[in-house]
């Protein structure tokens, strides 16, 4: 699992690559927590285009980031969700909570 972050003017963009399972999610959560504490972003964009597999561990990652952005009174969007991950999000009804673009 690779997490690459880019930020400018309190906009944080995070690109995820690899398998987002429980094993990979631990790493992503740590990295996201660290970056968000440091940057205090107003906007968070998560690019999932490189995610080759995802299970419900990925849902926990997004919900945690979403809660954190709400605390910071910012917004969060998720883009380029691959078909397999989309099925997982749909089964969990996540589109009601997360803004997929």
């Amino acid at each position, binding site marked *: 699992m690779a997490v690459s972050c880019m930020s400018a003017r309190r906009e944080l963009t995070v690109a995820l690559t690899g398998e987002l*399972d*429980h094993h990979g999610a631990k790493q992503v959560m740590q990295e996201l927590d660290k970056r968000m504490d440091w940057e205090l972003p107003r906007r968070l964009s998560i690019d999932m285009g490189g995610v080759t*597999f995802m299970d*419900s561990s990925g*849902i*926990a990652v997004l919900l945690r980031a979403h809660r954190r952005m709400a605390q910071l009174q910012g917004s969060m969007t998720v883009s380029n969700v691959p078909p397999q991950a989309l*099925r997982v999000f749909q089964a*969990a009804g996540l589109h009601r909570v997360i803004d997929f673009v």
Partner: protein
Amino acid sequence: MRTKACNYVSVDFPSRSSNEGFARTVAACFAAQLDPTLEEVNDIKTAVSEAVTNAIVHAYPDTIGKVSMKLRLYEDNSVEIVVRDWGVGIADVEQARQPMYTTGGEERAGMGFTIMESFMDKLRLRSTPGKGTTVTMRRCISRRAGGR
């Protein structure tokens, strides 16, 4: 109406998170015999990932224990997957299956069983506190035109 198993595979592994990917790959390779679509393989991989992750995360919270995965192929073009552990067990299996129920805190979403149920045709959960948990799942693979 259960047909005989025509092929099977059985693997045991320790409850280390690095084995989650291994278990998914084994299940995907085994299911490949039924000539599934990409979506069908992915559904099976996702359900296996959920069941195996539960055995790794919840069954053995502070130790490394044994996880067993059995795969069976049936003549009606279905695959059955049994994931078993000998860990802490679940006191209330009905409650465990509820969406968003989790004892795993912020790191878990409580959607594992919901996903297993929606991606597989059948799911059975048996557990005895202190003895362990067995999840049995079954998925039919569509026979495609031009196929065997």
